[in-house]
């Protein structure tokens, strides 16, 4: 009996000591030196792992920042205070870049449906069925895929069936723009308040037939713009945000109200804008 106890104890003891020493040696021998800057930057980054920078996550981005020649501004989510700290960690000068925000380029009220869709409640799936169930082939399907992919809960589906952007939360990461199968979400600079709120490349007649607020391609805004920032292509006006002076001249001339000026209602986005439209 006693021998059994002694033998079992010694086996366990010897194995335990051997393994312990072995692991201790191995952890020294195989230790990996990590750059402390990477860990520090990783703490400062938002750690949302949204992927907007094009890397697998915040950790991978931090490694690229330290070892590559990337700019901190590649991260669209990071707060400007954190960016300045990261720049000082990297020993680089921070170039200020303007905050960007998602813009929904559609404000259809009720577009008549071409057919009834009962499939998976996801815009990407809905688009596969005969090109989507809305008469307007470019407008919002309203199934909220953009809101589900937003990592910051900055998009919500309003009662009007359209996605709405919460300015304070939106970081301009662009996940919604990537996922929208109709491509009607873009990322625009925060200070450019005037947007074309339509994505329809249908001709004017067809657009009027299915939507009250569609861009019909009349080119009035193009002529009215003092800065030459608007160009109409494929019956759809497009604002060049680098030239736009946010004067609002285009908003006044648009016959269908397809151009929205958010500067009046900043923070409320299209809900207020549209109630203003109704009063017009």
């Amino acid at each position, binding site marked *: 009996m006693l021998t*059994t106890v002694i*033998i079992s104890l010694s*086996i*366990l003891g010897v194995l335990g000591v051997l393994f312990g020493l072995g692991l201790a040696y191995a952890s020294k021998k*195989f230790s990996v030196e990590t750059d402390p800057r990477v860990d520090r930057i990783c703490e400062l980054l938002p750690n949302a792992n949204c992927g907007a920078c094009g890397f697998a996550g915040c950790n991978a981005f931090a490694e690229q920042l330290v070892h590559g020649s990337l700019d901190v501004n590649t991260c669209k989510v990071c707060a400007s205070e954190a960016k300045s700290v990261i720049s000082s960690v990297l020993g680089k000068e921070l170039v200020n870049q303007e905050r960007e925000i998602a813009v929904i380029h559609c404000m259809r009220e009720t577009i008549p449906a071409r057919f009834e869709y009962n499939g998976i409640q996801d815009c990407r799936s809905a688009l596969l069925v005969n090109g989507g169930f809305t008469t307007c082939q470019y407008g919002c399907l309203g199934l909220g895929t953009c809101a589900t992919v937003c990592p910051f809960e900055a998009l919500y589906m309003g009662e009007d069936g359209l996605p709405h952007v919460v300015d304070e939360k939106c970081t301009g990461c662009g996940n919604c723009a990537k996922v929208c199968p109709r491509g009607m979400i873009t990322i625009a600079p925060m200070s450019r308040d005037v947007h074309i709120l339509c994505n329809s490349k249908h001709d004017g007649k067809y657009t009027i037939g299915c939507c009250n607020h569609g861009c019909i391609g009349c080119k009035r805004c193009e002529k009215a713009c003092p800065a030459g920032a608007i160009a109409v292509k494929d019956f759809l006006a497009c604002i060049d945000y680098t030239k736009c002076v946010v004067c609002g001249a285009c908003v006044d001339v648009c016959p269908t109200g397809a151009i929205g000026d958010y500067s009046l209602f900043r923070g409320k986005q299209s809900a207020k804008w549209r109630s203003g439209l109704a009063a017009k």
Partner: protein
Amino acid sequence: MSFVELFTIFFGVMLINNFILSKFLGLCPFFGVSKNTKDAVSMGVAVIFVMIMASVATCAINWYFLMGHQSNLLFQVFGGTDPSTFDMAFLKTIVYILVIAVLVQFVEMIIIKTSPALYRAMGIYLPLITTNCAILGVALLNDDFAKSSASMEPTFLSYLVKSLVQGVGGGLGFTMAMLLMSGVRERLEYTPVPVPLRGIPIAFFSASIMSISFLGFTGMM
């Protein structure tokens, strides 16, 4: 130790006595990591890897330290007349857990050092399975190969090879079950499931139905 025998072991542990679906071992990762196919396969590969290592390591430890027979190293060092004095079979569970945990830690260190890409792909799953019951299960089940029977006397080589085959088969069976389950669960995401059953409950239902279908293999061996 013929090819047929090895094939029977392999096929048996992979399909007929599948660790998850027939023995109900390793259910924790089976439900935890089976939400999408990519994670499930990574987990499966990590399990195959650890099962093979655990089979080999525990087999050597068992043969040379824990079994009361002539090959026991302690018996050879300290001598004596009766090798059964050194029969430490009751220590199996604790020693196996120790060996597997140490081994996985060690391999993790080596992988971090040598191949960061492989570590990122598999690394986070390795610590998860150090003390998984399927791994301990395969190690304990391997002990049957060391027992002498009427038909043949086991040698270390036959014990080792059979354990290895059982480890590979068990790991592949585990991966297969994970893959099937993740496929089912990906479909379930888009299925109108009654609210109280959403998530884990419906996964248990699906797993039980899959398990029943695997009962069809019973009696093939």
